[in-house]
């Protein structure tokens, strides 16, 4: 993420510089000018591209390579080539399937609420009002807060003697107030998903707010004149206009959903008995606790492929859908 940002800023500067340098070059010989204007932007792009290649592309390629070996991390030791053994092992590993299911559940139960609630909040905060900036900041605050901080916060909220149990038991009298949220697979997943939704709403709100700027005001007004009610206006005018934003939000959230890691690691540590492991915590355990980098890499590659396929399917579905709504 940091690398990407660096790359972008470098790119930005690279585009700006040759144009400002141009007046000074006017009147110089042509081939030199072409050489300079041709090569210089690339040279300025180079740091970002090289960083991206070294920090992102190279580790990815290396991970794919490692996944075919019983990888020894120490350079002097020989790694044994295993072919597809690590992949076959994953296929036959019930704990991998459990962790993949948990990742899938997390994705399914966090993405729709983030979209629906994010969109609702964006619609509410679209109108200008004196309190609007305050609420925008309020909803966006969880997004910029560190995962570590909010994971620990939610761990305490959902602790046996935490605020959730107090509210449900002593205050609302809905339960006995003695639910061990983090001691069972399903209740622990509820807590982890709740964190995911709470932290993510602000982000989708921000994207939708940006998208809502592109909704043509005159169309809204025309629809109102035609007697369309709120829901009809939303469906026929607003939604098609923010469709690209919707595509972006859905794709990013699904990818993010499968990549859930920090919150699980900090709230349950994959426990009890590995029941709340997600793919990335399981992968992390294989690689960094058991030093089984080959198997860990195979799990990472499998997850990448799954996410890739799902993303392609989403893009296709959305392309069809957007064609339909335009027609």
């Amino acid at each position, binding site marked *: 993420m940091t690398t990407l940002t660096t790359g972008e800023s470098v790119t930005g500067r690279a585009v700006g510089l040759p144009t400002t340098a141009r007046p000074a070059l006017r009147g*110089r010989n042509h081939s*030199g000018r072409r050489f*300079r204007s041709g*090569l*210089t932007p690339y*040279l*300025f792009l*180079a*740091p970002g591209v*090289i*960083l991206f290649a*070294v*920090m992102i592309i190279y580790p990815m390629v290396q991970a794919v390579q490692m996944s075919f070996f019983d990888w*020894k*991390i*120490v*350079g*002097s*030791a020989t790694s044994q080539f295993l072919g597809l053994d690590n992949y076959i092992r994953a296929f036959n590993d019930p704990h991998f399937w459990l962790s993949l299911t948990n990742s899938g559940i997390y994705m399914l139960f966090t993405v729709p609420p983030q979209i629906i609630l994010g969109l609702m909040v964006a619609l509410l905060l679209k109108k200008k009002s004196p309190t609007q900036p305050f609420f925008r900041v309020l909803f966006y605050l969880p997004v910029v807060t560190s995962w570590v901080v909010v994971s620990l916060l939610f*761990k305490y909220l*959902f*602790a*046996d*003697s*935490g605020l959730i149990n107090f509210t449900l038991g002593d205050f609302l009298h809905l339960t006995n107030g003695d639910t*061990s*949220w*983090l*001691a069972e697979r399903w209740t622990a997943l509820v807590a982890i998903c709740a964190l995911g939704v709470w932290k993510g709403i602000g982000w989708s709100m921000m994207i939708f707010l940006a998208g809502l700027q592109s909704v043509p005001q005159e169309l809204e007004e025309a629809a109102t004149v035609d007697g369309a009610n709120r829901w009809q206006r939303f469906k026929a005018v607003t939604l098609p206009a923010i469709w690209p934003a919707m595509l972006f939000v859905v794709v990013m959230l699904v990818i993010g959903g499968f990549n859930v890691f920090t919150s699980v690691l900090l*709230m*349950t*540590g994959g*426990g*009890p*008995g*590995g*029941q709340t492991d997600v793919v990335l915590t399981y992968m992390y*355990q294989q690689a*960094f*606790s*058991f*030093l089984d980098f080959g198997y860990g890499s195979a799990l990472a590659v499998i997850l990448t492929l799954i996410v890739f396929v799902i993303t392609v399917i989403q893009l296709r579905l959305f392309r069809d859908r957007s064609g339909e709504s335009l027609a």
Partner: protein
Amino acid sequence: MKRSSKFGSAVAIAAALAVVATGCSATSSGDQGKPDSPVTITFWGSYGNGGNSTQQDALNKTLIPAFEKANPNITVKYVDIPYDDMLKKLTTSAAGDELPDLVRADLGWVPQFADLGVLVPLSDAMSDFKKLADATYPGSLSTNLYKGKYYGLPLDTNTRVLITDQKALDAAGMTAPPATFDDLKAMAAKLKGTGMSVFADSGLGAWNISPWIWSGGGAITNDKLTKSTGYLDSDKSVAAVQMLVDFYKEGLIPNLIIGNQGATGTSDGLPGGKYATILDGPWMQGIWSGQYPDFKPIYAPMPAGPGGSISVVGGEDIVMTASSKHQDAAMKFIRFTQTEQFQIEMVKTGQMTIIPAFADQEAGIAAYYSTFATQLKSAKARLAIPQASKVDTILSTELTPAFKGEISVKDALSKAAAQIDQLLAGN
């Protein structure tokens, strides 16, 4: 002008390369000089874990200066690394061939890194190894043994003993801490319905469960570390774990033990009157004196079962890396860590000595150490195999359903034993 533009391009390329290169070049340039030229050795440890500066201060302000004074050509650079990051840091550093000269390693990591080939077997490298080794507790020393060679020396040690307090004893109507499994069962019967758990622990790994199995007369594997089936699921092992499961089912052990991260921790539950007994180490004294100044813990040996009172060895070892360029200097520092000066200075900061000959001096510094020192004489180490952390995962994964009553203890331990057999077969 043309030249200067080329020059500009060259600068751009150089800058790009420099940016990239700095990210990759943290290699320390070792000064490979003559034996008596000044050398710097790097020592990684986690003495400062939990924001505790007293141990780091003892090392940096007293011990290292003393060593450097006695060895004017050697400079020791201590780098503190948080415990939770240490294994990851060691792993990535081993991969990048950037390990320091010396590491204060959790004893479970020694076989793991010995197996990777990044450690020097001290039993081969040090001519006086036997003399140094013989002076230490056998349980601590055994954590350094891997495939017939010792890859380190104990640095500090600890073990788990039973900790309770007067409030809990009063609640159970007892005059002394439970000394046997039967005492503990009697205590449990008295505490039933009071809301106070008879015992609490925060996991089901080898560190947690081994003392019960060993004291119950059971074992995790055979002595040769080749077989777990028939040992981990023996009648004695099953009976010991069954006792805990029975307590759990009666609500006398909290679900903290199966990994409920939302449960009250043992360090709060005992002073808070929620838990009657816990098993824990000597570091608790320091934690409680800060957080619960009025709490007066009572230390007692691990309750004895059919197998006696046997607890588990913890602590750290000091190891030397194969990539160290100054092995002689590093070994000098290792010898220094085994001296009375080093050991006693560390005792004052809460680290227990690994040399039984200093135990009396240790008890003089803080009386509660004596319970731990006595326990250490019979304490055993966990399996010294590279996959020790896998054993922890296997034990907690298989035992969790047994505690929840979904599977019998015998079946759970048999399943765990079968998986541990596979690990042992791979060594």
